[in-house]
Every structure is written in C-alpha cells, then in structure tokens.
C-alpha cells in the first residue's frame, strides 16, 4: 500500500511548501524534528539514530484519508506512513509505555521478546492473543512480521548495517527508526513520546504528558539544589576483574548530577559504559557515600559471594547501595528498562529520596530500592 505511493513517478504536491507549516515543538531531544504542512502531512526527520549514522532519515506521515490522493517522488522519503497508525510493531520495551500513555494499546500487533514486557495493559493484550511473538532481539522473524501485517515497524539500530529490517522493508512494510536510546539528556529521551504522538495522531496528548513530566522533573531538580550536602556516588559493578560503569556523559550520570550529587566519574568522557580496572575504582570510589545501580545485584549476600573486594567500599559496609534490579514487572523484564526513559521524573525523585534523606519523605520510590541483606 504505502510502497505503491512511493513508486509513482510524478506528483502534483511533490515537495512541501514552507509557507504555513507548523513545526513540532521539541525542546530537549536532538534526534528528531517534524513539520506539518497545511494539508496535514507531517515531515519527520530522524537524526543520528545510532552512533556514526551516515545519513538522516526522512519520513512522510500522511493522514489516512488523504493517502490515496497524495503521491511523492520515488525515494524522496525513507518511508511513507499512514497516520494514525492502526497496526504497529515495536522492537524495544522502551517504546511500550507510549502506547499506554497515548491510549493506543490496541495498535500493537507484534513484538520480539514478549516475555520482557512489563506494562499490565499490554500483558492483557498478549494474554488475549492479539500480539504476536516476533523473535528475539534484533533478529526479527520476517515471516512472523509479514503474517502480523503491520502498517509500520518501529525499529532501532546500532550501526549502519540494518540487517533484520531489510527484508521487512523490501516486502513493502515501512520501517521507521527510533533513536531515543541515543539521547543522553533525561528530558530529551522522554520527549520521544512526541514521536509516538505523531504516529498515533495523539500529538496533544503526548505534548500534555511531556509537559507534566518536565514540570515534575524540574521541580525535583530544584528541590535537590536545596540539599545541605552533595554526596559522592559510585555506580556499576565488577564482571570478572573489569568494572563496568556509566560514562560521564551518559544518561545515567545526568540523573546523578541533577539530583545534586557528585558522580565520581563525571569527568570521564563517553556516553556509554566505561571498562575500568578494579584498582582504579578502589582508588577513587572506596570512600563514596552512596552506590547507585550495582549492575544485576539485588542483595548484599549476593555481592559478597560474587567478589570479596566489594567489602572494601564504604557504601557496601554502611549498607548504602540502591539498585533497580529487584524491580520487575509481571514479565521477565526490569521495570527500569521499560519505564525509566519515559518517566525521568520518577527516576530523579527516586534518587533525590535516597541521596538526600528527608527531602521527599512521603514519596514511594518506583524503580530504585535498597538492596536486600
């Protein structure tokens, strides 16, 4: 269907005119921007969906009723998508919360790795059989995707070799890349709900949700600036003899800074994970006040059994470690991985609650919990 539009050679309304277009208000996110022309067609540009992406991806989102009347030059856009989308395939649990927030849980027809979804509303749909299992990780089972007949597949990539999506797009199903995982600013990452708002024609709902999240986040951040001290924070854990922890420019580090605490590797460049030697971490972090997110550990006993070196850390001895690995949804997946990108305000409030005791006394943490003994 959509591929048919792309292949028609000439078009009357081939290129959008700039007069009278409205731009989508995007304040923090750097990976996408959109303009809507007077005819209601939205032109969405995705930038840097993965590190070192060689080009920008341009998509035309056309209102369903106008789809037949509009033609575009072939290859002008990476995909032409009818909106609002009625049959959707998502490929990451970070995309799932948007469906619940924008009241579009009926649109999901398939997902790779159903067991990892935590959202109760979607799990109900899974149990009723309306969502197909499409494989694992980036290996989408092409046949299953085709059988599910989605109108668009929201994919994500990690490099220029799109691999799993080529057969899907060759079969005529539009693939649109979601680059939310590349955003390092917590509010920027959350702002990708507007991306889903465009696809599901729920722009105002998305904007409203984001404004609420932004307000709560800024409120929590301002509250934290009133704290009397700025505690030092350690993160990550050992695997074998290498310590993995977030880089200074990463999304995880941004939360710690916004919670008015000092992440000890704030100055280490890199937005991904750092691999450091145990010695270096001992030297710098043995005296850290708090330890946030110790990888997959959920109890002190577990940590002690895994590696006796942890006893050298003050935060371990004084029992001031908080992690999110114990908070699971009804599925196999961690709630943090699914919900945290969309609700940075809850993450920040969790951190403020633990790092500055007494500042949010009645708040119930959502993701982070103290480790079990």
């Amino acid at each position, binding site marked *: 269907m959509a591929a048919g539009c792309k292949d028609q050679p000439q078009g009357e309304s081939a290129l959008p005119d700039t007069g009278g277009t409205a731009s989508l208000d995007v304040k923090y996110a750097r990976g996408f921007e959109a303009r809507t022309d007077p005819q209601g067609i939205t032109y969405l540009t995705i930038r840097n969906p993965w590190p070192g992406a060689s080009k920008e991806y341009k998509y035309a989102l056309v209102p369903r009723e106008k789809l037949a009347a509009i033609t575009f030059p072939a290859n002008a856009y990476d995909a032409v998508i009818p909106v609002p989308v009625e049959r959707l395939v998502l490929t990451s649990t970070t995309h799932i919360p948007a469906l619940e927030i924008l009241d579009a849980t009926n649109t999901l027809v398939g997902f790779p790795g159903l067991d990892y979804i935590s959202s109760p509303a979607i799990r109900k749909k899974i149990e009723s059989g309306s969502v197909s299992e499409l494989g694992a990780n980036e*290996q989408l089972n092409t046949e299953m995707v085709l059988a599910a007949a989605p109108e668009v597949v929201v994919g994500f990539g990690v490099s220029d070799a799109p691999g799993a999506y080529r057969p899907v797009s060759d079969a005529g199903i539009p693939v649109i890349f979601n680059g939310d995982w590349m955003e390092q600013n917590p509010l920027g990452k959350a702002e990708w709900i507007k991306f889903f708002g465009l696809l599901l024609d729920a722009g105002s709902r998305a904007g409203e949700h984001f404004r609420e999240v932004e307000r709560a986040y800024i409120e929590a951040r301002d509250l934290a600036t009133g704290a009397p001290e700025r505690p030092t924070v350690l993160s990550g854990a050992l695997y074998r003899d290498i310590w993995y922890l977030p880089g200074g420019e990463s999304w995880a580090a941004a939360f710690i800074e916004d919670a008015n605490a000092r992440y000890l590797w704030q100055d280490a460049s890199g937005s991904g994970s750092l691999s450091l*030697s145990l010695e*270096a971490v001992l030297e710098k972090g043995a005296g850290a006040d708090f330890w946030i997110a110790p990888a*997959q550990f*959920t109890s002190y006993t577990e940590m002690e059994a895994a590696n006796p*070196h942890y006893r*050298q850390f003050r935060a371990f001895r004084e029992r001031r470690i908080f992690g999110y690995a114990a908070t699971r949804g009804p599925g196999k997946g961690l709630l943090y991985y699914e919900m945290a990108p969309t609700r940075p305000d809850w993450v920040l409030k969790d951190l403020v609650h633990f790092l500055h005791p007494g500042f949010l006394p009645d708040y119930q943490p959502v993701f982070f919990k103290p480790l079990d003994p």
Partner: protein
Amino acid sequence: MIRAKRSFGGFALLGGLLVIAFLTNLSLGSVEIPLSDTLRWLTGGDTTQANWTYIIREYRLPKALTALLTGSGLALCGLLMQTLFRNPLAGPFVLGISSGASLGAALLIMGASLLAPTAAAWAVSDLSLAVASSLGSLLVLLTVLLVATRLRDAMALLIVGLMFGSITAAVVTVLSSFSQAEQLQQYIFWSYGSVGSLSWGQLGLLSLVFLIGSGISIWLLKGMNALLLGENYAVSLGIPIKRLRLWILLATGLLAGGITAFAGPIAFVGLAVPHLTRQLLPTSDHRLLMPGVLLFGGILMLICDTVAQLPFTSYVLPINAITSVVGAPVVIWLLLRRNRMLF
C-alpha cells in the same frame, strides 16, 4: 653434560627474567604505587597508604600468581601437544578442550537464562562458571580419550579433536541465537580471558591442578623424547605408545581444562611459547625443554598481563587481545621458516 652446560646460561636468563617480570607485574597497574612501597611490602614492611596494601596483597599478588600458573601450564600443554602430534602448529586447545570449556560456560550463562530466568542472574558466579567450564572440557576430553583408544594414527586424533571443537562451537552458536543481549555480553566477556578474578581458594585449586598436571608430565619425559624419533622407533625402544598417548592426553586435559575453567580461554600462549623456548635453548631434550617452557610461559603471561592492565590509566584490555597480538606474529614467523623446524 655439554648440552646441559650450554643450556645453563639460558636457564639463568629465564630465571632472572621471571623474577623481573613478576616484580614488574606486581608494581605496575592502574594505581601508581611506587616501587619502593611494593618492595617494602614484599619484605614484610608496610605501604604508605592502607589501601595500597590491599591492592597489592588481595588483587595484584593473586593476579600475578594466576598469570604465572596459567602461562606455565598452557605452555607445557603446548609442548605436550606439539610432541604428541609432531606438529608445530598444535596447541593446548587442539583437542577441542577450550571449545568444551566454552560450551560449559555458554550453557551456564545463556542456557540458564532460557530455563530459569530469575534464578539465572545470581546463578552465574565465578565458581559456578569454573565448575561449568571444567565439566565441559571434561566431557570433550573423555570423548577424545575414548576415541584415542580406538585410533592408531595421531593425525586422525587431531582431526577428531578439531571436529569436536566444531560441534561444541555449533551448539554455542545456537544458544547465542536464543539469548538476550546481556547474556551474550557476559559470555563474550568470559571469552576475553581474565587472570585477576581468582580468590585465594580458587588459586589453591588451580595450583593443585598445575602440580598434578606437571607431575604427570615429568613422569612422561623419557617417553616424549622417544616419540620425537617417530612412533615405530619409540616402540622399538620399549615405550608403550598407547599408554603414553593416553597419559599425555590426560595431563593436557587436566591442565588446559583446569586453567580454562578459572581464567577463561587464553589464546596463543600454548602455541607460541614452546617455539620461542626452542630458540633460546638449542635442544630437543624434553628434560631441558619442560622447565624452559614453564619459565618462559610464566614470563610471557606476566608481561602480557602487565600490558593488558594499561598501567597509569584506569582502562583495562582483555588479556586475550594481548596474547594474540604477541602470539599471531610468532605463528606467521613459524610458517615462514618451516624448513628449519624440528618436525
């Protein structure tokens, strides 16, 4: 004997180098600890800062000892395999032992998550990894031994070992295709090799394995010298070939399997060190080669670990990368001067 005298110089050099390499490995790391502090601690004194004592005693010392045992053990396995198969390209993993260990580790890391997801997170510990990978290499070793009793030809045994390696690799590939990113990552990190994660108890176990393996090898030295002349000549000298072969396989399996269980698969050390040692000690007498290979293997591993620690930075490289960078040129050099090989 004349030969022994000529080799004495080589041994003295190797011994001295080992001490230097050990001290260097102890004193270099991410944290800058002055040499004087390290020496002071070694002679019973105290270091200037308390956590330096902890770093040297609880982290660097076990790491250096593990590197020493691992390097020596793998080099000895390489010698055993090269003599048994009379092939310069044989290494300790030519029988599929590291593939068996990888299978065990893969089953634990990736298989466990498929069967019991929530339990899997804490089931994978250093100890359970060691157990799983030693069981894996034991499985492959037993199968190889079984086949070895029925095969006459050493070359056929080599090929069977390679085929077992392929089978286990295929099973690991299937497991990987079902795994989530985290498990895959854990498995890959295991395959990088690591000498710094052993507790004192595990180090004790590794030493025991090393002692048994090298003990068996000492007993086999005369037979190995005879093997170099060819199997028929060895038989005419009264050496029981089949029994010799089985014991060599057992010693190799024990050493290589045990080392891989604790430190992960370490590439190239077993293959390269016997050749490097033969350059230094101009002899094919295993009674001289074995101690030479043990010393040289330890030295090489200590040097590779020192480099992998990237001293004065906080970053660490996987040790397999360093041993491969050292070992691969050796293999190329070998292929270029094949006409002067002893085999």
